[in-house]
């Protein structure tokens, strides 16, 4: 028993010091995943080989998605009320050759249990043959939000990444369309548009080598969908250029096959596979990360790490805190004209044990105050795996460090703490990193309400729950580990 306590303390210390980022749960094993698509409340991604993954909440993923045609590295997109899926049949060295075809097909639903689940006959929209400077494999789709045109990039290291235009009504190649070379020395390309820029994503490095795969996702951008796509050094992707979006880190290697998923205003996710998750037998797994934007460049964010933090409002920089008396600590003003040769001694920080007896024991409110690294300002945030999750994250409990006192939403759309975490949905919190790197914090539910509200600052010192507004610092928070 004693031994267990030691282990437990060590584990807790580890969390406090370093935190840990949790990956998708379930059996998220996939290679070359398509962009995640939502269909009738469920999430889908397809991989090489014909199958794919389904998730009810975007957090727990299991096999079950169905795609005919087999082949490799599909992509998927919703256009109108239908879904267009494109995949590569052979090519890319599969089967030993570079002959490949890219095939598109439609379905009304991605749910294999639906009576409407039926894929149309496929159309060949691009191909490669022999040793031409391209592999017709690894397609990525973009429906241009500015004009409704549909584009597809494709290719591997074997020659060029090419761009073709498809007909968004039929999914077929636009008549007379000629492929354009837009990149080299990457594969698993994808396209996206934001804020006047078109982006060409590519995967660089070594594929298919497990923990030794050096796959990484790079990007170039252009004012025109047809390129040229330049990186941050002004280097064309036709010269091998590319700015890093996501590389290996933590316990996962080899991110590849970028896909963008817009959750809502200011909340974007990127999907990929990691060639190896060292915590999951080194298997290839689905990855979902926050997608951040810095100076109009996409940056792969980190999944939220459990730990103990100051929760700082972006409004003024004050910190979320329990409403308790401010307890003075040792280390008051020393006074003037003192002997500076006196020995230097550290001053102990105020600890929970120093103050907790003065705190109320029932439900207690919270406010926002100037951060003094005091116990009533330190929050331990821990995943609650049994509570499920949302796309890219688990639900968390947020408690005063060293206690079970938990942050909770009230039916009056306010925020308080309850003495003990019970797992009630109003005590569970969704934490999404925003595109600017700050965070949105939302209760899983607001009691007696269907509203989706977020933790916001209604005054410098007063938190509440209100609709999230990406354009206001009232809605944004940072987690600082001091």
């Amino acid at each position, binding site marked *: 028993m004693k031994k267990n306590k030691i282990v437990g303390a060590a584990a807790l210390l580890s969390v406090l010091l370093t935190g840990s980022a949790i990956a998708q749960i379930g059996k998220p094993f996939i290679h070359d995943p398509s962009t995640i698509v939502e269909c009738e409340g469920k999430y889908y991604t397809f991989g090489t080989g014909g199958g794919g993954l389904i998730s009810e909440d975007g957090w727990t993923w299991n096999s079950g998605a169905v795609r005919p045609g087999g082949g490799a590295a599909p992509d998927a997109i919703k256009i109108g009320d239908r879904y267009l899926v494109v995949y590569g049949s052979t090519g890319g060295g599969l089967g030993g050759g570079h002959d490949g075809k890219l095939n598109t097909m439609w379905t009304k639903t991605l749910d294999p249990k639906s009576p409407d689940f039926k894929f149309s006959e496929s159309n060949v929209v691009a191909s490669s043959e022999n040793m031409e400077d*391209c592999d017709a494999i690894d397609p990525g789709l973009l429906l241009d939000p500015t004009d409704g045109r549909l584009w597809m990039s494709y290719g591997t290291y074997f020659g060029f990444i090419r761009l073709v235009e498809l007909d968004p009504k039929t999914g077929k190649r636009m008549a007379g369309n000629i492929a354009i070379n837009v990149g080299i020395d990457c594969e698993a390309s994808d396209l996206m548009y934001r804020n006047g820029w078109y982006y060409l994503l590519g995967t660089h490095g070594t594929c*298919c080598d497990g923990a030794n795969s050096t796959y990484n996702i790079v990007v170039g951008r252009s004012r025109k969908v047809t390129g040229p796509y330049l990186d941050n050094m002004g280097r064309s992707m036709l010269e091998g250029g590319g700015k890093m979006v996501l590389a290996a880190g933590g316990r996962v290697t080899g991110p590849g096959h970028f896909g963008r998923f817009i959750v809502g205003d200011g909340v974007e996710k990127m999907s990929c596979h990691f060639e190896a998750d060292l915590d999951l037998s080194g298997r290839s797994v689905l990855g979902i990360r926050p997608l951040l934007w810095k100076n109009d460049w996409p940056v792969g964010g980190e999944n939220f790490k459990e730990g103990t933090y100051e929760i700082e409002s972006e409004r003024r920089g004050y910190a979320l805190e329990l409403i308790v008396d401010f307890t003075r600590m040792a280390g008051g003003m020393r006074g003037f004209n003192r002997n500076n040769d006196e020995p230097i001694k550290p001053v102990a920080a105020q600890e929970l044990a120093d103050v907790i007896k003065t705190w109320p024991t029932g439900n207690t409110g919270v406010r926002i105050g100037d951060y003094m690294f005091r116990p009533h300002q330190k929050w331990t945030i821990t995943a609650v795996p049994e509570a499920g999750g949302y796309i890219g994250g688990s639900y968390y409990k947020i408690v005063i460090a060293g206690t079970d006192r938990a942050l909770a939403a009230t039916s009056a759309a306010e925020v308080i703490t309850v003495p003990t975490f019970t797992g009630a949905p109003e005590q569970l919190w969704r934490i999404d990193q925003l595109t600017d790197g700050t965070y949105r914090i939302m209760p899983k539910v607001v009691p007696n309400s269907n509203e989706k509200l977020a933790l916001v600052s209604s005054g410098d010192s007063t938190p509440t729950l209100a609709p999230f507004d990406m354009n206001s610092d009232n809605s944004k928070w940072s987690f600082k580990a001091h």
Partner: protein
Amino acid sequence: MNIKHKTLLLAVSSAIFVGMGSQSCSVASKSTINYVAKRDTTRSIAPYFTPATIQKKTPDSKGFIQRWLLLEPINKPNRGNTVFTDSYLKTAFASEYFPNQFTILPKDGEKVKAGTQELTWHALESTNYNVKLFRFAYETRKQYYGVIFWAVTVVNCPEEMKNVRMAVGSNSASMWWLNGKEAVLLSGDRRMVVDDCVSPRLTLNKGKNIVRGVVINGPGMSDFCLRFLDEKGEPIKNLTISYE
């Protein structure tokens, strides 16, 4: 995903070689109206190279050197490119493949013996900023996977230039020398990226300077690009390139 680059046996690659044609490299693909690629039956390096001439030639508009003496590929079987560690390369590139390999300034058409292979030097000018070694091998029906390519060129400098850097990108690994001294090594399973690896500060002598390089690849498309950068990182273009 490109499994072939990493895992395919060369024997399989050789099988692919048989009966294959090629398509030219151009800005646009040559897909037909039904978007099924056309099978070519001829091979030619013409889209990628022209024979080198004795006419004055400068680097291209971005400073890339396009005139090179290229030796037909030496067989060097490797199933994948992840073996190209620094140690592997230093050993592989220190080995003698043909006489005077570190000093020779070959003539166009000159032949050398590398093991059992009799190989020819070709004076060529790349039509691209990069030198597509894969096309040099494939279009001339030589072995194109599991190979070593040697390249030599002469950089003529109007005056001594100090603190310049040789900037190289290669697929896959490579090593480069300037006037007999090692300048830069590109190790690992590498793709060709402009200015990927850059040498320490070097001096280009007034007059002739010999640039020599060796590129190694398992499966995949071999190529390289090389230019010199000045102290500000700008490409040096006031050079002339010859092969004699």
